[in-house]
């Protein structure tokens, strides 16, 4: 019986090594996947941001074009015309000033991103 037991192939250490390597590889794979997913989310957010920025600027350009034509053709009550365009979390403020019967100038062209309220944990009020 002892002789038979001595003949058994011992796989314990190999098995432990195999399991350890597998676990490490799985952890690395999951980390890699989560990093890649986060990269993709950031890339899509960046693309979305650029698209929205140009959308609102294109709207602003259209407004300046139309308003300038109207001012030069029909005149305006005041020297300056203001416009605020809001689209999603972006805001464009434009001020157009009439200089003469033939010229208008863009006095202000300010694009801002409206930040929403933080949804993070309030560490000073655990009840929230």
């Amino acid at each position, binding site marked *: 019986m002892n002789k038979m037991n001595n003949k058994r192939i011992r796989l314990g250490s190999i098995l432990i090594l195999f399991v350890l390597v597998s676990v490490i590889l799985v952890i690395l794979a999951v980390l890699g996947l989560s990093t890649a997913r986060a990269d993709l989310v950031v890339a899509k957010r960046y693309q979305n941001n650029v698209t929205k920025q140009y959308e609102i600027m294109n709207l602003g350009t259209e407004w300046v074009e139309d308003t300038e034509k109207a001012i030069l053709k029909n005149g305006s009550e005041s020297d300056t015309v203001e416009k605020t365009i809001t689209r999603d979390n972006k805001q464009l403020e434009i001020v157009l000033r009439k*200089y003469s019967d*033939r010229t208008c100038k863009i006095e202000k062209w300010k694009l801002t991103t409206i930040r929403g309220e933080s949804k993070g944990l309030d560490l000073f009020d655990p009840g929230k």
Partner: protein
Amino acid sequence: MKRRWRDVNRISFMIQIIASVLILLLVSSVLIRVYQASINKSKEADIITRSTRIARISAEYFSNRGSIDDVISGWDDAKKNITNYQDSIAEKDLLVYFDKKGAYQDSRFIKSGSDIKKYINNKNKLYVMKISIIADDGIGRNIEPVGIHAVREADFSIYFEGKKQYSLPCKTLYMTGEKADE
């Protein structure tokens, strides 16, 4: 008795080996799938970022808002090509070629509306940007009254390996003749 024990040991050993091989196959196939998914997602993220960056910087050059950092990082030639394009006629599209890292290679004009696939034959030029002029009021023309804002509109389409990735329409204002404050 001895023989029976030996048989039991052999069967047990075989089962262990088969189970180990199966587990190995299962684990490795799962790992390969996960790594493959990671690589695909990373590649997709990279393509999105580079396509958007190329279109954004080109649109900024087109409307003369190119940043100095981008010029320093190798967009000098691209800027020349894109800004020179302002004087070109609208019947032509401009193709600008970039390598896999998004670095500028060269550019050429093609007939507007033609299929760009026949102009992609170099594997080193993975990103291709097609700039199409949509509206071109006042570029190289005498518009009256002088000193008003004319609109220039272009579409920046980015292709990766011949497939359209991103399109960025850009409208920009152009002061005709002398500027208002001069």
